[in-house]
């Protein structure tokens, strides 16, 4: 029976059930990643951001919220220029974080 409407899936994030295993692995390797304050300096300076939506801030948040696919899309746009590392006020080595996340994606169940 078609009533002319469908149900949309909930966009709510459920913190206690989401899968943040990747984020936790990242933090074990790069504890500095936890100190992000979401200031947006990295995204503002990113050359790729205005064309692709790349943002280290969103990448870290996405990993915390279990948004694996979104993070992967974002990662593919990074050119590894390292400008984000230069501007981060917390001194997070964002370039290394990106590379670590890439390795984690390639090796989710592996040795990392």
């Amino acid at each position, binding site marked *: 029976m078609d009533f002319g409407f469908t149900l949309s899936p909930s966009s709510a*994030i*459920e*913190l206690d059930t989401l899968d943040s295993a990747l984020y936790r692995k990242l933090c074990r390797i790069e504890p500095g990643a*936890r*100190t992000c*304050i979401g200031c947006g300096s990295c995204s503002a300076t990113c050359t790729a951001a205005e064309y692709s939506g790349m943002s280290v801030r969103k990448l870290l948040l996405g990993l915390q919220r279990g948004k694996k696919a979104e993070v992967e899309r974002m990662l593919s746009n990074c050119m590894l220029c390292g400008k984000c590392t230069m501007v981060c006020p917390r001194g997070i080595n964002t370039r290394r974080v990106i590379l670590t996340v890439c390795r984690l994606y390639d090796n989710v169940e592996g040795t990392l």
Partner: protein
Amino acid sequence: MLLSMKETILVVGGGIAGMETAVQLKALGLTPVIVEKNSSLGGHVAQWNRLFPDMTPASKVLDPYNDALKEVDIYTDTEIASINSLQKEYAAVLSNGKTLRCKAVVFATGFKLFEAEKKEEYGYGIYDRVITNRDLERWFDTRSDERVPAKPAAIGFVHCVGSRDVKAGNSQCSKVCCITAIKQAIEMKELFPDTEIYCFYMDLRLFGKKYEDFYINAQRDYGIHFIRGRVSEVAETIDGRVQVKAEDTLSGKPVKVKLDLLVLMSGIVCDRANNELARSVSLPLDEDGFFRSLDNIAGVTCTDRKGLFLAGTCTGPKTVPETLAEARSAALNVYQYLKAKKK
């Protein structure tokens, strides 16, 4: 040069502001008298277990006053019935029937902690797993509170409860809750290393020395999760836990989490019980309900009334060191005032 007189100075309130003022007045050769409405001195600090940012036991701040106040007259369980302005002094009538003649009065009447049950949507007093910052400090002291579970899997902290909230009647920032939440979150993480801890904040205001480092520790070393978004509602789950709803404003998505314990960071608000006292001596109150200082830069502890001074949180939210500094400042104000009068 110390004043050679032994003039009586009334100190209203026996929290840290009042006690420190009295100690300093005594050292300056004056005769302070503390009037405290509760049965013991120490005020809010006496209800706290440890203090930020060095986890100093509150007793370490309070204990030295036992000795320092030995020779000071203290009336506990006593309120000020009225203060009358005479020609050259004040006459304070106490609730115990005594009248005290004094040359100056220092108001160190402090603050009230926001009554968390007023924010009904957070369920304090309704749900078993919701407590306040003060309840948690008491639990740190006593380790007995049925609301705190033995092995919590997840704990949440709600910042800005009753502060920065025009609807609750308090537009001011309560100043100390951000850092207190971080302190308490770290303490809980130390007790329960496997527990997930979430802090829900609007802004994090970590203005003081070492506060930001404390925050970085909480993030990096303790893995405490900071979620930018104000909790909109709390509901009880079928298994007696609480579910919290907020917006994760950094991702623009609604966020939900089930918790075993929710701690509300009740803010510092004015104590309306002082209104009558202020009116009786024509001391103006600010729009926020706290006492109004002569000015907010160089005259925080002064008023426009002769011989009346202010110390500590009766003029607004303050940290412990700020309060102590103001108490010393107010004592000096009294001294200078009397010295000028002598000439």
